[in-house]
């Protein structure tokens, strides 16, 4: 596998410059390059053949995690290695750190970015499912200077599809200020440790004063049709406390409402079992994080 000829490479020092460079080409002919951990494979296998590569590495405003009164902002170019150890992503948004910590291997985590994963939206990717659970929002800027915010539910489409237009750059992933008692977690199972998930499950919980679930979001990745929320299960989780037998029933609901495929990694029934067992683990972690344990 080797890349086909690439006509131009640019390394803009501002987002405007990056968008201008993209504007010189027909849609899809210029591609943004973040960590390259998906794009380079795609370029080498010639799944995509960009005429121009726009390397985002010098855009400082796209890097790093910042937290303020309004919530948390994760720059699109923030690498997994930074996300997995960020102090702001331990409790309410711990699912993002869980996902980052187990992506591939150290070398991939040293390069791969949250923005790249979300914009690529590979079927078995971890970040899309984790973001669906925590309910993040995508901040996009287009070549015409239009800025828009898109909720993750609307951003993530089918496999390798998102709501991002070819001439839009993802600036950041934003999260609302978390309520006091909120926790989330993500866990996956793959054929070898930290492999692309056969199934990945993420859950976000907000607890009321008595420790019962006030709000839940549960998302599953590793599905042929792309990551999905299990909304029936979310409704069934409401009002339940840690240890309640109703939690298992809610996970049964998730396993039945989510359509799973059979392939050479696992059959459909096995995938449904994974939704239950991984679901129980992430619920336990999310409860503990929400309770500050």
């Amino acid at each position, binding site marked *: 596998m080797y890349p086909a000829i690439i006509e131009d490479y640019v390394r803009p020092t501002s987002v405007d410059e990056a968008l201008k460079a993209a504007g010189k080409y027909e849609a899809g002919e210029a591609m943004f390059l973040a960590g390259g951990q998906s794009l380079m494979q795609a370029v080498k296998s010639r799944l995509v053949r960009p005429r121009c590569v726009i390397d985002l590495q010098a855009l400082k405003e796209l890097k790093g995690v910042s937290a303020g009164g309004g919530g948390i902002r994760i720059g699109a170019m923030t690498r997994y290695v930074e996300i997995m150890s960020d102090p702001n992503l331990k409790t309410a948004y711990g699912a993002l750190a869980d996902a980052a910590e187990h992506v591939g291997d150290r*070398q*991939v985590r040293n390069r791969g970015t949250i923005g790249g994963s979300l914009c690529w939206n590979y079927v078995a990717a971890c970040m899309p499912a984790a973001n669906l659970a925590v309910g993040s929002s995508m901040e996009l800027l287009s070549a015409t200077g239009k800025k828009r915010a898109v909720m993750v539910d609307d951003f993530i489409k089918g496999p390798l599809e998102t709501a991002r237009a070819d001439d839009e750059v993802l600036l950041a992933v934003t999260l609302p200020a978390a309520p006091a008692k909120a926790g989330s977690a993500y866990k996956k199972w793959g054929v070898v440790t930290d492999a692309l998930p056969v199934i990945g499950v993420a859950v976000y919980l907000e607890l009321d004063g008595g420790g019962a679930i006030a709000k839940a979001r549960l998302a599953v990745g590793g599905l042929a049709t792309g990551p999905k929320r299990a909304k029936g299960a979310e409704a069934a989780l409401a009002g339940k406390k840690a240890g309640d037998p109703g939690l298992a029933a809610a996970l049964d609901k998730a396993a039945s409402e989510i359509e799973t495929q059979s392939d050479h990694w696992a059959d459909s029934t096995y995938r449904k079992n994974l939704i239950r067992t991984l679901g129980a683990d992430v619920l336990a972690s999310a409860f503990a994080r929400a309770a500050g344990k």
Partner: protein
Amino acid sequence: MNKTVKITINGEIFEQSVPIRLLLSDFIREVAGLTGTHISCTYEGVCGACTVQLDGAAVKSCLMLATQADGHEVTTVEGLAKDGKLSPLQQAFNDHHALQCGFCTPGILMNMDEFLKKHPNPSDDEIRTGLIGNLCRCTGYAHIVDAVRDAAKRTR
């Protein structure tokens, strides 16, 4: 189609006009002539043999264009020994017979060299997890883990 890049490899500057599609792994091997960086998975990014350090971080050089490294510092396995003396990690690999054919070794050394800077006192679990990105078809990893553990001790 071509770009002039300036990449510092093991302290030496290499400046050359190269095709944009040239991978960093090939720049290292063919332009700089440093063949210690190996290619073993036909550039799929899954074997780790091509691991080098980019500004100190372990990365797979077959998943990068050489132009991405323009202006950056790369360290390859040839850069580990200083004044003809093996680094403690290299010496530990030698002492523990942590290689057989040796094809995977440069990539493992470049990954573990950075790993030990971040984890000066690693558990065996941490070492094994740290090695996920490097395939070794010969050793079964046991001696590699021994060597990394011992190198940590020697470096502390």
